[in-house]
């Protein structure tokens, strides 16, 4: 078969190719970053809509907006979507666009593998959300076969006995597909950060965002295999009748919980560390002052990653692990608050004495710090098993993790969006609308989640589709619902900002006067990123005299730069994998299922061979 590699021009200053096909076959980290960002933001809105319906249902006691069955799908998909289809890929958008620029590279180590990760994510997300619409194919209504076992899918609720429909099949297959995307990206970014740094950029000169992302990638490649196995066991139980989570056969449903949380706890650090990295870039820039205690912030991040492997059973304090296990995990959980707290002091130390400028990125970054502190405090309260016995499975936990994931991660991601928007698109988002977005979101978020501390301690359980007025939590729920609507308005303001900011003054290479390498090149960067790869002499190359050479970078590359072409095989391989998944969904009918799965496998294998042997030079 003739090569399908795109022609790659090698003039002194190659231009980015245009047209739909160039996007479909792109291997350029900047384009892949934009694709991740747009797709993830779309799923973020989907998850937000699910949240709004949840809140409308819970806004009053005894409400009948949605049935219990629909509600189970809503909160399951809200959680699964937000974690796997919104927050992780939004972080990935930044990994993709920003990391190669921050380390002074022309692209990631494996550009086609990078594209592959994106396509698998997109198709996996569509696969999972297709469940909302394809009920009739399974002899059911629409909006009835979406995953409904919670984002954590506890055994044996998720067994074929108690979840007989295809709902959980969508979930187990979808998660495995998405896991492939994350793992591939993990190998890619670890290699990129280790091996493609510009000359002079030692590890301790790397920007903190790159460092935190580096730790995150190690968490991904170690944690995802564990949940892969846990989910494989569940899939085998459901498809073939194995006994992994079958109590009558001697199995233990707690095995699922252990395997899930062995992944699940590192996962929450995967969700927060990149945002912490973003905040660690934004605060110094808008304080006109270097990050306080760079080395300590880096080591804390590494420590969080390592200790994060030793705390998982704090999600299981109510299952009867025994006093020794409870104590061990309680201690490790309290311990991990230390490096986390250290970072907070470093951020405050950065602000202290700085010339503060409260542009939108700074507002979101400071918002992150304050809201994360609140979420961290409720987290430490969970660390005590006796206290947790009251808090667990109540809305107190919902309050905790939304403070750290919404108040924390989402704020951090918006800080990154406002901060790096000019670099990516060449124009800055409007300040006025940005501030309005921030305040609406800040107020809305607190209105939504602060009352949950109280409704939780008053005994409102999680995952219930309605509640009686006698529980005494109706007012709290109403306030939460109003807060959620306000937060929704904030998102509309953001979208409006995106729309109106398409016109405006060009941003220039460094509109915020920031310190790190990505601001040394134009906005947006040329397809080859840097006209010459600079030699770095300092961790803040744009702030220190002689921090980088040459400075400024030449406007035009002095020597020809090879820019790799595109390739269709990453997409084809991704399609093959998802077709296998579709085959799995059909497991009730042997031959159609097997046939589809084999067709998918054939496409996957052929695509991999084409990928391996096509001429492609980075």
């Amino acid at each position: 078969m003739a090569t399908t590699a795109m022609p790659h021009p090698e003039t002194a200053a190659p231009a980015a190719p245009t047209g739909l096909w160039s996007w479909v076959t792109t291997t350029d980290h900047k384009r892949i970053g934009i694709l991740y960002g747009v797709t993830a933001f779309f799923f973020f809105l989907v998850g937000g809509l699910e949240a709004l319906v949840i809140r409308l249902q819970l806004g009053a006691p005894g409400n009948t907006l949605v049935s219990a069955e629909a509600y189970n799908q809503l909160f399951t998909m809200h959680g699964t979507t937000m974690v796997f289809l919104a927050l992780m890929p939004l972080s990935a958008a930044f990994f993709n666009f920003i990391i190669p620029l921050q380390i002074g590279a022309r692209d990631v180590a494996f550009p086609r593998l990078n594209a592959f990760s994106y396509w698998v994510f997109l198709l996996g997300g569509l696969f999972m959300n297709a469940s909302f619409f394809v009920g009739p194919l399974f002899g059911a209504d629409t909006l009835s076969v979406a995953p409904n076992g919670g984002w954590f899918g506890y055994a044996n609720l998720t067994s074929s006995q108690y979840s007989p429909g295809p709902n959980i099949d969508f979930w187990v297959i979808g998660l495995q597909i998405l896991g492939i995307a994350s793992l591939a990206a993990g190998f890619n970014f670890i290699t990129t950060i280790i091996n493609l740094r510009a000359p002079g950029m030692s590890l301790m000169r790397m920007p903190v965002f790159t460092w935190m992302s580096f730790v995150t990638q190690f968490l991904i490649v170690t944690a995802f295999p564990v949940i892969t196995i846990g989910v494989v066991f569940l899939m085998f139980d459901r498809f073939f009748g194995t006994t992994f989570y079958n109590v009558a056969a001697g199995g233990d449903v707690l095995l699922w919980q252990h395997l899930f949380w062995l992944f699940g706890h590192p996962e929450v650090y995967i969700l927060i560390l990149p945002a912490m990295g973003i905040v660690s870039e934004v605060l110094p820039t808008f304080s006109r002052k270097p990050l306080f205690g760079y080395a300590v912030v880096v080591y804390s991040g590494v420590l969080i990653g390592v200790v994060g492997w030793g705390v998982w059973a704090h999600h299981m304090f109510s299952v009867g692990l025994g006093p020794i296990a409870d104590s061990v995990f309680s201690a490790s959980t309290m311990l991990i608050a230390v490096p986390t707290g250290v970072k907070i002091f470093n951020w405050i130390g950065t602000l202290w004495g700085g010339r503060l400028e409260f542009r939108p990125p700074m507002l979101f970054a400071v918002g992150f710090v304050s809201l994360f502190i609140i979420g961290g405090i409720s987290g430490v309260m969970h660390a005590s098993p006796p206290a947790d016995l009251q808090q667990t499975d109540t809305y107190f936990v919902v309050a905790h993790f939304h403070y750290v994931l919404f108040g924390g991660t989402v704020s951090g991601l918006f800080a990154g969006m406002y901060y790096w928007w000019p670099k990516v698109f060449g124009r800055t988002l409007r300040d006025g609308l940005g501030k309005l977005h921030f305040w609406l979101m800040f107020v809305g978020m607190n209105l939504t989640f602060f009352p949950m501390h109280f409704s939780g301690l008053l005994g409102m359980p999680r995952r219930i589709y309605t509640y009686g007025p006698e529980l005494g939590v109706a007012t709290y729920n109403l306030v939460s619902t109003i807060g959620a609507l306000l937060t929704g308005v904030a998102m509309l303001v953001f979208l409006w900002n995106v729309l109106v900011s398409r016109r405006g003054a060009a941003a220039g290479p460094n509109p915020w006067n920031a310190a790190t390498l990505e601001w040394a090149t134009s906005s947006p960067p040329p397809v080859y990123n840097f006209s010459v790869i600079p030699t770095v002499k300092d961790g803040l190359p744009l702030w220190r005299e002689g921090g980088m050479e040459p400075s400024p970078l030449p406007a035009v590359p002095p020597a020809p730069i090879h820019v790799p072409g595109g390739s269709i095989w990453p997409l084809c391989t991704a399609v093959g994998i998802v077709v296998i998944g579709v085959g799995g969904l059909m497991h009730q009918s042997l031959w159609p299922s097997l046939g589809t799965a084999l067709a998918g496998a054939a496409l996957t294998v052929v695509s991999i061979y084409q990928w391996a042997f096509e001429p492609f030079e980075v």
Partner: protein
Amino acid sequence: MTEHTDVRHAGEAHASTRTYLVIAAILTIITIIEVGVFYVPTLHAILPPTLIILSAAKFTLVVGFYMHLKYDHSLFRAVFLFPLAIALAVIVGLLFLFRVL
């Protein structure tokens, strides 16, 4: 086939063909000892720790020599040993949590 020539890295330490054959012989012998211990009833009291030590030796030999980790840049060692340590900790942790240990 019998001389040791390393075309890629002149001067870098490298195992020879003879070394590989010796390692293969050692691996075989260790396997025979493992199976032997299994069949000797009087040794059953110390069966698990003995087997663990013996197979750890085989593991180290294959990883160190056949996978060349002994001679390679320490970066590869770090990238492998860190997840391996987590995997071992997870196994041991779960054995305790399920009251096997």
